[in-house]
Each structure stands twice: as structure tokens, then as C-alpha cells.
């Protein structure tokens, strides 16, 4: 039979005394002015059963009073908070952290073994100059992205709520308004999350919360790279009160940024890289892990330009959230010219198409600017037409520009011209 170690005072040297508890931020609460009570040897540690100093405080208005449940030695062995037994760095259960970092420290669980072990561990900890985390955690490790993704970004104060009023559950609560316990429906007893055991949670064995988190991680959406290799734009969501400079500061490490556009109305931003692999790297690293200013940003690929509603709109890298209805009265999308019309700009098909079919295939390549300097940019089309004309019909006089034929073709729609939409992403070689 086990006698309480508190009443057995012969091993009093083993009792722990502490100055300040080891706690996580959520357990401490949101109020910076906490009053904490200290009681020496107030309770037994829930894991090693040795008497230790308990600290008790109120984590905020309408919260229950919390107290330390395990002793400092046990909390240092696993690097967890003394009250909630979650990891101090990430706020995740021990099982999740150990699996992600592949830590296989074994702490004995049997009665005598456990006492011997904690005794020695405490003696060692008292000797070392600078406090080190115990065991495999002390090895320098790269930041695990699994843990980064699973960790919360804001404190979760629902943990500090008062317990459910058991009288209310039976319908008998006479305290009514002033009852400090929660008057809510209790959690479903069939739910596996309601069978939690402090020992299991501490040792990282058979923890239902950890299992739920790990299965949730496996089902996290994975980022697919778009097949269209020309897309180098990332769509960033949840951009609230984040400015362009902050985004640049983060994304410059992956490669040269071509442009950053912030759209406050949609609370999103578009980051376009010059190189495709830079964008891929950025997406891989930032997907579901990027946190700027305390806000977790969603990272997705931007849609390729061919999925755009209208052509000829440069500057945004070709990504739009909403499809707008076509405005009446505006010219609609100009259809691409048929193959025949690709070179036949002036409706000379009847005379020259038959002879020029073979020639036209070669002349659709990129033409040097015409020798005649264009008077101004507005006249560019006409000067280009001269150039075309000189290639296809050296003999005949260039007729005035006419777009009255069916199947209007603008030179800017010519797919081989620089500045047309499809080649937008390949500017850097």
C-alpha cells in the first residue's frame, strides 16, 4: 500500500523547494499584474510523488485558479510547463514533440526506478552551471516545420476556464448567477479526448490529444506546384496591416523579387519572383508556416495568366480573385486570328495568301523594328505594318491600315511579340 510521501517525513531532503514556477504563457494568463501564492511542500508531484512547492494564481477574470501540478525536476526532464504539461516552446503535447523531433529518452515509470531516477536527475540539475534541457532535447536541432505548423500562434485561454458545474448538469445548481463554475453542457464521455491521464500525457504515451494532432497534420493540405512553368507568383492571404516592405524582407531570401503588390481590400498580396525555382522554394518554405506580425499567412500559387478573363492587362502578374462581368459597351475579348490571318493584316488574302502561305510561316517570327523611326508611339502599329508589308509584299504599295475585315488582329496579340501575355514570366534568362 502506498503512503503519502508528505506524511513520511524521513526523506525530507528529497523534497523540492523552488523560487518561481516553470510556466507557459497561457497558463499565466493575460493580466500582467498577477498575485501568486506560494506554499512550500503543499502537494505531491503528480508524476514522481515527491512533495514540492506549489504556486497558485488567477490567470485572469472569469478563470479558475491554476496551480502547479508537477515538480520542477519532472518539468525540466521533459521541458514542459508545470501546470499544463505542454512543451514550453511550442505548446504541444509531449508525444507530438517527441515524434516530430524523434526523441527517444526513456524515463522509468515503475515505482522504485522512478524515485531513483528523479533523485539522481535532480542532483545533476543542481550541479550544472547553466540549465540545459534534459537528454536529447539538448542537442542543437533545426527548427522542425512540423512543430511550427502545429503550434498555435496565439495563447489559448479556453484552457483556463472554470470546470463545468456538476450541480448544473444534474439540474440542481442553487447558486445561479454567482456560481463560478461553467453552466454548459459537459463534453461527450464517448469522445476519446475525455479519457486523459496526466501520467500518459507526461510520458508521451497513448495521449488522445497528441494522436488527434498528428492525424490532423497528415491531412493538412499539401501545396501543389502548378504545371504551368511560367507562373512565378505567389498569392498571400490574410494580409491585414502588413506592408510591402515586410513581405519583401521575408521573401528576398528565396530569390530576386520582381514585384510585390498588396491589395488591402482583399487583404491579400501577390509576390512575383524573377525565377521560377525561387518561387517554388519560397512556396515550399512558407506554406502554412509563414507568420508575420503574429498573423499566419496563407501561401498559394497565383493563377497562370491564361486563366485570366481579359488579356492585355500587365503589371499584376496575372492573378485576379474575382471574375468580373463583362461591362456592356466595352470591347470584348478580341479573338485570336486564324492561322491564315496571322500574316494577312490587310486583307490581301485573295491575292497573296496562296503564294504567301509558305512564306507566312517563316515571317511570323519576331521582326526587327522598322528602319523608319515612328513619329510617336501611337503610330507604332502603322510602322510595324510597314515592316510586315516589306516582308510579305515587297512589290505592292502598302494600303492604308484597315481593320474592317472579319477576325481583327492586333499586333500586340501576336504570341511571338514581347509583352504579350503568355511569355510574361520568362523575362529573365
Amino acid at each position: 500500500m502506498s503512503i503519502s510521501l508528505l506524511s513520511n517525513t524521513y526523506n525530507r531532503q528529497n523534497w523540492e523547494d523552488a523560487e518561481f514556477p516553470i510556466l507557459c504563457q497561457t497558463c499565466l494568463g493575460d493580466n500582467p499584474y498577477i498575485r501568486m501564492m506560494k506554499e512550500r511542500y503543499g502537494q505531491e508531484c503528480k508524476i514522481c510523488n515527491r512533495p514540492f512547492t506549489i504556486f497558485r494564481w488567477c490567470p485572469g477574470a472569469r478563470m479558475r485558479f491554476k496551480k502547479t501540478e508537477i515538480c520542477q525536476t519532472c518539468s525540466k526532464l521533459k521541458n514542459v510547463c508545470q501546470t499544463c504539461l505542454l512543451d514550453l516552446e511550442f505548446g504541444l503535447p509531449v508525444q507530438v514533440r517527441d515524434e516530430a523531433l524523434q526523441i527517444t529518452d526513456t524515463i522509468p515509470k515503475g515505482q522504485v526506478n522512478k524515485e531513483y531516477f528523479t533523485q539522481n536527475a535532480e542532483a545533476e540539475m543542481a550541479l550544472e552551471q547553466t540549465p540545459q534541457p534534459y537528454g536529447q532535447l539538448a542537442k542543437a536541432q533545426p527548427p522542425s516545420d512540423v512543430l511550427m505548423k502545429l503550434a498555435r500562434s496565439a495563447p489559448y485561454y479556453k484552457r483556463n476556464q472554470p470546470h463545468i458545474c456538476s450541480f448544473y448538469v444534474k439540474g440542481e445548481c442553487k447558486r445561479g448567477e454567482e456560481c463560478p463554475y461553467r453552466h454548459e453542457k459537459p463534453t461527450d464521455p464517448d469522445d476519446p479526448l475525455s479519457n486523459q491521464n496526466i501520467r500518459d500525457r507526461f510520458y508521451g504515451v497513448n495521449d488522445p490529444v497528441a494522436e488527434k494532432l498528428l492525424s490532423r497534420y497528415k491531412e493538412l493540405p499539401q501545396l501543389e506546384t502548378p504545371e504551368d512553368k511560367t507562373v512565378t507568383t505567389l498569392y498571400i492571404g490574410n494580409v491585414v496591416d502588413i506592408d510591402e516592405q515586410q513581405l519583401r524582407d521575408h521573401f528576398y531570401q528565396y530569390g530576386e523579387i520582381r514585384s510585390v503588390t498588396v491589395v488591402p481590400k482583399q487583404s491579400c498580396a501577390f509576390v512575383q519572383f524573377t525565377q521560377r525555382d525561387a518561387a517554388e522554394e519560397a512556396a515550399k518554405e512558407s506554406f502554412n508556416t509563414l507568420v508575420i506580425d503574429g498573423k499566419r499567412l496563407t501561401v498559394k500559387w497565383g493563377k497562370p495568366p491564361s486563366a485570366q478573363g481579359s488579356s492585355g492587362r500587365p503589371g499584376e502578374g496575372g492573378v485576379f480573385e474575382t471574375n468580373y462581368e463583362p461591362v456592356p459597351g466595352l470591347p470584348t475579348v478580341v479573338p485570336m486570328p486564324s492561322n491564315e490571318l496571322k500574316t494577312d493584316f490587310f486583307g490581301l488574302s485573295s491575292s497573296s495568301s496562296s503564294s504567301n502561305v509558305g512564306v507566312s510561316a517563316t515571317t511570323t517570327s519576331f521582326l526587327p523594328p522598322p528602319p523608319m523611326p515612328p513619329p510617336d508611339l501611337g503610330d507604332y502599329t502603322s510602322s510595324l505594318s510597314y515592316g510586315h508589308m516589306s516582308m510579305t509584299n515587297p512589290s505592292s504599295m502598302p494600303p492604308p491600315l484597315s481593320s474592317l475585315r472579319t477576325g481583327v488582329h492586333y499586333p500586340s496579340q501576336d504570341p511571338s511579340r514581347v509583352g504579350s501575355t503568355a511569355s510574361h514570366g520568362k523575362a529573365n534568362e
Partner: protein
Amino acid sequence: MVKVRKTSKPPPDGWDLIEPTLDELEAKMREAELAPHDGKRKVETLWPIFKIHHQKSRYIYDLYYKRKTINKELYDYCLKQSIGDKNLIAQWKKQGYENLCCLRCIQPRDTNFNKKCICRVPKEKLEEGKVVECVHCGCRGCSG
């Protein structure tokens, strides 16, 4: 049963006017002492005792200081016989403590951080809509 008298002398004049009320209060106190504890919290069982004690002292205090219907002799006699609590009445004479519920609620040694009871906090300073019944005497706020 008649209440035990601490002196052999007869009570001073005016006693007959207040005796019936005092007898009623006495009876109430006896009822509260004998009440069963079922359905009540452990601390809640004592609340009626403190309440009636306050009421008795209040009656004596009112008669002498407020309504001035009894003379000093009778007042001193009541205090001597412990009908009214002398220390509680002494607090009521102080500014801010006029409605003090009981002496336990101003004792700092009874609290964790050496403060007064929550019922001593004025309602404006307390967060909105919070109903408090102090654990000592069930008071819902006795400041101001």
C-alpha cells in the same frame, strides 16, 4: 426561556418598549441555530447567523444614534448584555463603514493576500454584472 442577565439589577427605563422586538430577534436567532444543513454549502450554513447578529446590532444602533429614542443608560445596558455587538457598532461610526456586514470581512489576516473581503469593494469598481456572495457572511456588497 428567558435570556440570561449579566447583572442582578433590573434593566433601566425604556426597556419595556424595546423588549418585544429584541425577543423576536432572539427567536429568529435560535431558529437559525437549529436549522438543518441540507442542501446548503458548508459556509452557507453560517450566513443566517451573521445576518441576524447584524440585524440585532443594527436595531440598537439605530435606536440610539439615528432615532435617538433611548437614553445612554439603556444603550449601555444593551451593550453590556451583549445584545448589540460593541465592536461592530464602533465600525459603523466610521466613514465608509456605515453598512459593514460583519467583522470578519474587514480582517486582512483572513485573506490570502492580506486584503479585505470582496464584499467591501464598491459595485462600480467591480466588473459589471458580477454577483458576489462573500464567503464569510453571504454579503453582496456592503461598502459605500
